[in-house]
């Protein structure tokens, strides 16, 4: 793996200013992504995973606002870039794949039209070359009969096939980064397996970096090189996938892993994380996870823990991280 950094995010803060108060959806998140790397962002709903993804392309709508930080993509800060410059990056150098494959395709245009649109905007090709490229893209994502299917409308495709089309559109301009927000959550397991395998294969072949946002730790461990766990807008733990899955340092990661039923091991009882995610309007002082944490001490409820560094580039937002060697 090459070590050159493609994307570097420093202290990103995206807040939502609602009538009820300010929601710090993303609160001081920093990470970097190398070329060709697959980074998984996991966490439960409301953790700020998607907002982080959308922030990278500055796709945050009112009342949301990116209030601080830097997003360095190939060295330029996207937060300072002009809207025009951003448009040339969106869909060309960074593209997105969304959760719901029906709503991210336009129902009144053919699939071929929508694929071609991206090529018209970002690439200078002749009409015939574009058509060939569309056919090539569709067959790359495993759609049988690509030439005929270009003329079909989204509703004529099944859910899994639509997601393949969306991946084809995302790949159309050979981006350096794809942000996939819960790309397989709406799909059945056998179809999910097909799409995950496809994404893995394509990211290896095209050397395109991938940010995979999901709530499913198992999906992340199948695909990602590195994992980032988010809770209440904070990055609570990051490191290599294997280390995190086998030796989680942060109690939240540990709790998440314990609470999922494992198909391979017989657990007589699940060990859920007690309590619920705190209200984003009234986040507790100190560590956001303190009142659900088994390792909670007095300091946790008073001070916010810093991001401690552990072995092998691991980091955990906890006063008492458990570094175990794997």
């Amino acid at each position, binding site marked *: 793996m090459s070590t050159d950094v493609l994307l570097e995010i420093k202290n990103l803060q995206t807040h939502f200013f609602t009538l009820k108060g300010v929601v710090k959806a993303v609160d001081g998140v920093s990470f970097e992504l190398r070329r060709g790397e697959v980074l998984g962002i996991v966490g*439960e709903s409301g953790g700020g995973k998607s907002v982080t993804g959308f922030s990278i392309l500055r796709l945050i709508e009112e009342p949301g606002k990116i209030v601080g930080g830097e997003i360095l993509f190939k060295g330029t800060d996207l937060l300072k870039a002009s809207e025009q410059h951003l448009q040339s990056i969106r869909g060309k150098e960074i593209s997105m794949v969304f959760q719901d494959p029906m709503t991210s395709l336009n129902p009144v245009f053919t699939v071929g039209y929508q694929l071609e649109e991206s090529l018209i905007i970002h690439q200078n090709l002749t009409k015939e070359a574009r058509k060939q490229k569309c056919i090539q893209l569709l067959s790359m994502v495993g759609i049988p009969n690509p030439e005929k299917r270009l003329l079909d409308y989204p509703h004529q495709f099944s859910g899994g096939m639509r997601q393949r089309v969306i991946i084809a559109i995302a790949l159309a301009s050979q981006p350096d980064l794809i942000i996939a927000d819960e790309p397989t959550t709406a799909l059945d397991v056998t179809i999910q*397996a097909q799409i*995950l395998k496809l994404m893995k294969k394509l990211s290896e072949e095209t050397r395109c970096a991938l940010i995979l946002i999901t709530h499913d*730790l198992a999906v992340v461990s199948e695909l990602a090189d590195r994992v980032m766990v988010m809770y209440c807008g904070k990055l609570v733990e990051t490191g290599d996938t294997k280390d995190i899955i086998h030796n989680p340092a942060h109690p939240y990661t540990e709790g998440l892993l314990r609470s*999922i039923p*494992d198909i391979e091991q017989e657990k007589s009882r699940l060990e859920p994380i007690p309590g*619920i995610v705190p209200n984003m309007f009234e986040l507790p002082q100190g560590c956001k996870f303190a009142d659900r944490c088994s390792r909670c001490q007095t300091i946790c409820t008073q001070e916010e823990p810093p991001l401690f560094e552990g072995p092998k580039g691991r980091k955990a937002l906890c006063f008492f991280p458990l570094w175990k060697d794997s």
Partner: protein
Amino acid sequence: MENILLVENLIQSFRVGKGLLDELTFQNGRFIRETLRVHAVNGVSFEIPRGTVFSLVGESGCGKSTTARTIIKLLEPKGGRILFQGMDITRFSKKEMLPLRKQMQMIFQDPYASLNPRSRVLDIVREPILFHRLADTKSQATEMAMDLLQKVGIRPEQANRYPHQFSGGQQQRIGIARALSVHPQFVIADEPVSALDVSIQAQILNLMMDLQKEFHFSYLFIAHNLAVVKHISDHVGIMYLGKIVEKGRKQDVFSNPKHPYTIALLNSIPRLEGKNLEHTPPIKGEIPSPLHLPSGCHFHERCPYAMEICNEVYPEERMTAPNHWVSCHLY
């Protein structure tokens, strides 16, 4: 062991299209009337011994929810037999079902949509008790409802709140309390945790198992998540296009899967070890439409072991090991 429920060859289908015009098609110079039917459940048989958990697993559109809704007679069965506690309820009218309703209850997938937004939580749980006259006085009913709410983890001071004031996990707890308020013998849980976050999922699954131990009822559990199913069930049935392709004790089905579809399903699950998808070939194709069922075995178009006979005859259910049934020509 006595069966709480026995289902034999259950059939359910729905007509699509609204009127005569939708059914007319113009073919070879003349009009042909063709009634399109979604064949949702095509001969499903299984039994649930009293006090156990039976799970129906399968991908979307395989007919698992329709099976559940037909069993509880929210839909009229188109064929087959349903025996509830030994009683044939297949042809029971709504009125005849009424006294049985308190013995069979349902927990739904979307906790918010299944609670009346204008009712206080206490009223939601108390109403079935009052309706089925399980309490002599209203205050006794209130007491019973409060007791149950406490059991599922809702604090007494929260009982006067409305559903929207609770989180998804708490709403599901309320749904469970409502189902249990009439002391049912049999509870159908239709994807009860799939709308919840993982950490909350575990809380609800534990709660459901604790309550089952306490009240000794039986579950029919509908889910698509195999890990959850493996955790909660005693017996499982794997469904594909309205048929159970494999059923048996969960240990047998999970550790010794026989049907190619079951094997494919198990191979498709992403695992924490992260090696599953890398080493197993994915199952090809997609589920065919239940409008036009494939000939022979419903799975043959996607099956890596398909033989000639699979295209022609639907395989009969065979017992490959004690209590382990498979519908496949390989066995």
